[in-house]
């Protein structure tokens, strides 16, 4: 086993952090890279805080997955099946969708809350160039994991609707994954969106 100091692949500056983060961010040249069998520089987005977002600010990472989704057949006992077909942009049974997967290590309920909330809400935000010294939550879920979890998110969205899901025949294809830092404010009840 070999241990190496993490350095920015672009400017070669060492990276310092107090938390374990799979996404390495260079404060000097604002480059982010991940290591998975090699060193890969990645593109990422930082969303601007709403001016009304006051309190303990923090940026939390999400994998935003640009996906194609087609519903072939579905059956819900005692309820309706409409959420996905309502959201996707395209034909009645299929189209494109951004799926948001929380990239930090989170409890199950929080994972469901934010993945469903962001995917349903499709957040709109303006971009900024840096984190403006706001704390950044560590990334713990890899891009590959997030792409696999996309299936889980879309089925969860249907299963959490009234009624009991009995059958769902669909196809899902993830075309692209991008790390997106969305603004949050820490409150007494946990994280609150800062958009």
């Amino acid at each position, binding site marked *: *086993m*070999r*241990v*190496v*100091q*993490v350095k920015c692949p672009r400017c070669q500056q*060492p*990276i*310092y*952090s*107090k*938390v*374990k*983060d*799979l996404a*390495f961010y260079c404060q000097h040249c604002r480059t982010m890279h991940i*290591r998975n*069998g090699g060193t890969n520089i990645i593109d990422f987005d930082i969303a601007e805080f709403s001016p009304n977002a006051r309190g303990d600010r923090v940026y939390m990472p999400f994998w935003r997955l640009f996906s194609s989704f087609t519903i072939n057949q579905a*059956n819900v*006992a*005692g309820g309706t099946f409409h959420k996905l077909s309502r959201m996707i942009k395209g034909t009645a049974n299929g189209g494109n969708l951004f799926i948001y997967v929380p990239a930090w*290590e*989170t*409890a*199950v309920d929080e*994972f469901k809350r934010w993945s469903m909330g962001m995917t349903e809400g499709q957040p709109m935000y303006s971009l900024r160039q840096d984190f403006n010294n706001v704390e950044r939550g560590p990334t713990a879920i890899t891009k590959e*994991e997030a792409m*696999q*979890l996309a*299936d*889980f998110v879309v*089925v*969860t969205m249907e*299963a959490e609707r009234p009624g*009991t*899901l*009995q*059958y*769902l025949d669909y196809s899902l294809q993830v075309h692209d994954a991008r790390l997106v830092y969305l603004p949050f404010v820490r409150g007494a009840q946990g994280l609150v969106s800062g958009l």
Partner: protein
Amino acid sequence: MAISVGLNCPACGGAIQVAEGDNVLNCGYCGSLLWAEGDAGVMTVAYRNVQGRDSVLRATEQWWRKGWKARDLREKGKLLECYPIYLPFWSTTTRVAGWICGYEERRHTDREGNVRTERIPMEEMVLNDYRYTSIACDPGDLGIRYLRNVGGEASFADFESIPTFESTTSKDEMIATSKQRALEEARGDANVPHITFERVIAIPKGISRIYYPVWVVRYSYGERMYMATVDGVTGNVLSGRAPGDPLYQSLAVTAGTSIGGLIAAGGLAFGLGAGEGLLALIGLVVGGAVLALTYRFFRHGSEIVEGDFEGKAADMRGKLMKEARRTFRGFHT
């Protein structure tokens, strides 16, 4: 679990703490972010052997006194060998996420004896991390297949002085087996009797190779040879074979045949006397079961076997799965 790996920060030289399976480390001294690279993506950790020959022999002697082993084992048992080895284990963490939908059927019988079947729809979410360990070589007659302890200090300091078994099973095989087991467990957790829809994925989160110190103790009793293995970290006996006691066997046979015979005869007499054929049959079955257990103890009681030997592996696997479930829930590990 934070463990010391006996390595130093390449930036400042400070000692590094790392959790098994973690690739990203933080130097507690200079704050540098560090990246641990394993061989072919596998992090290798070796636990420090903290037991000595004396403590291992004490543990073995204590083990001799437990259970149905020969009472004079401590006097007549002769130590032949006592030495440490490193055994390789695979350790995997697999995340399972998905939904299993379907229904269960409940039967209701009304006063007139009509049976109505009610179908209750079910949708169950699965989102768990499962951890498995498995020995990465042929354990031979050691009776060790799984790693029970995951605490301790890790160090490669003893690697030169203690014989080490090489890995002979592949990591790909272990990952595939872990995925399969995790999916099976997840289905068991969901507990949906009739499945109409299932979308469950198993994501390998990490794999490590752990070299674990084990002491092998070989001894004789009478004309026969026996062995025991002792955990080099905790000092507990992991597995072993020991002679049984003829007195216990005789007592068990006497008591077992008496009780089994009485139950069977009593059931027959009472049941037939009262005209209850079913009662007689139950008496026969229970009595027969007691006799069968008695025979089993008599047949195998000449040798007491503890550990993951052939034939006991399936039981152990079930036990480890339950341990995995208790330890890892949700996304917090």
